[in-house]
């Protein structure tokens, strides 16, 4: 079992109440339709019911990112990580936020942590690459880009296969 799967299981041991799950589900559906304001309201309701469920913080952070509210997104990522230090997706989102805040050194640290916990996170590898690129660390950037590209291609090929099989 890899680190990411282990972390996921640990996180799942703290089960949210049914109502929270339902709110998050509805919030995610709204976010998918780019209705971020409404999505945030749902995530906030979920947080008021159970502030100890890391996924609620991360989902609100994601909605904040989409609306350009990076400082609030960063705070939410940190809340999620305070609840679960091995939450790979929260590290990945934190890396993205730090990149957007032009805090590239910290972005590298966060995305490196994300890729350590989940080596298959193409987005985290890419963010690591762009942060390194911004700091002029070209060779390291190319390495991270290379890894991100490999993963993206595998995902793309899988998606193509599914499309053909449909």
């Amino acid at each position, binding site marked *: 079992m890899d680190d990411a799967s282990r972390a996921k299981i640990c996180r799942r041991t703290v089960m949210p109440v049914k109502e929270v799950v339902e709110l998050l589900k509805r919030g995610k559906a709204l976010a998918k339709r780019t209705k971020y304001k409404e999505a945030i309201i749902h995530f906030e309701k979920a947080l008021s019911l159970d502030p100890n469920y890391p996924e609620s913080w991360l989902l609100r952070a994601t909605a904040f990112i989409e609306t350009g509210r990076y400082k609030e997104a960063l705070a939410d990522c940190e809340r999620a990580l305070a609840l679960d230090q091995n939450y790979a997706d929260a590290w990945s989102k934190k890396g993205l936020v730090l990149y957007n805040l032009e805090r590239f050194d910290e972005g590298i640290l966060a995305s490196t942590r994300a890729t350590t916990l989940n080596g298959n996170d193409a987005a985290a590898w890419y963010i690591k*690459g762009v942060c390194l690129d911004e700091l002029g660390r070209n060779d390291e950037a190319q390495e991270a*880009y290379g890894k991100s*590209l490999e993963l993206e291609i595998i995902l793309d090929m899988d998606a193509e296969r599914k499309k053909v099989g449909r």
Partner: protein
Amino acid sequence: MKTEIPLSKPIRRFLTSTEEILDTEISLLRQADAEPGGTLVDIYTYDIEKNVIILPAQYIGLLKDFVIAKQCTNLLIKGAAAKKSRYLVCSYTEDSVYRGMRQIYLDALKDEAKKETKLPVQKLIQMLFILFAHFNDDINELPWNAIVNASVYHRMPKIRKTQLYHVMKESKTDMDEMMEQETIVPRRYFVLNKAMFYARDMFLAKTLPADELMPVLNIPQMKKFNHLEVKEMLTTRWTQTAWYQSKVFGDNMLAIMERPLNLVKWDAEPTLDYYFDLYKIGVNLTDNLISYMTMRDWFVWEEPKHLLEAHKNKEEFEKKALKKIFGDLITDAWEDG
């Protein structure tokens, strides 16, 4: 350009310089069902205020960057044409549709005469405009695809590996195009269509050298291509297919493509004039390909609005052309299928 989407440094610079050169604005939009190669919705084609590049939502890293680079180059070529002169595309009119469909019909009759199992008349009639429109789409896309890919290759060395994957993927899709209609489409058009893509692929195979293949080779699914050059990969694909005869035509088309494209100084300063030169080369290349395929009177160079209008009237054009070709023999039931 303001975007929440993370972008690699060279792409961000390229986007900014594209906006500066054209004095325009570009937005990026992610969509789950976007075309794999992205879509450019530009102010030179449509009545809109801002250019939009639509990206597949699942592309999060360099795959997305390549799509942006490609569409920015497309935009630069279109914009340079519009600013320096007029941006024109291959459109069609009622008369040109008639000429094209008539030619396809005559060629189809020659094919049908040799066939044991004849194509049902209704299918043959339906095929005429579909094939005509197909060549219109391809001729508006293919020459520019070669130019844009060559330009991106020379200007964006950091995304070459990504480009290679896109080229291989695109090539596979284009090769499969029309396959299901192989027995229906007149041989000449089937071969010409394949030959066009063959020429494009061979031109790109010569442009993109083999050493750029890494690290794509680390991907298990692509390991079988190990030790193969890009050129070899694309050639192998083409020579092992049922349409090997496309090679003869394809080699001629490759020569048509190479003549102007080999003269381009791809690393020259990227100014408005430079991109206008690329546009002129593309127009010339398109003309030469149309000439080679003897489709000279099928299409007319017109502004994009004309083509959009022609698309709106295509059913009308098709009906009128069928009436002209078949006279009273054609009935509404036939036309409507």
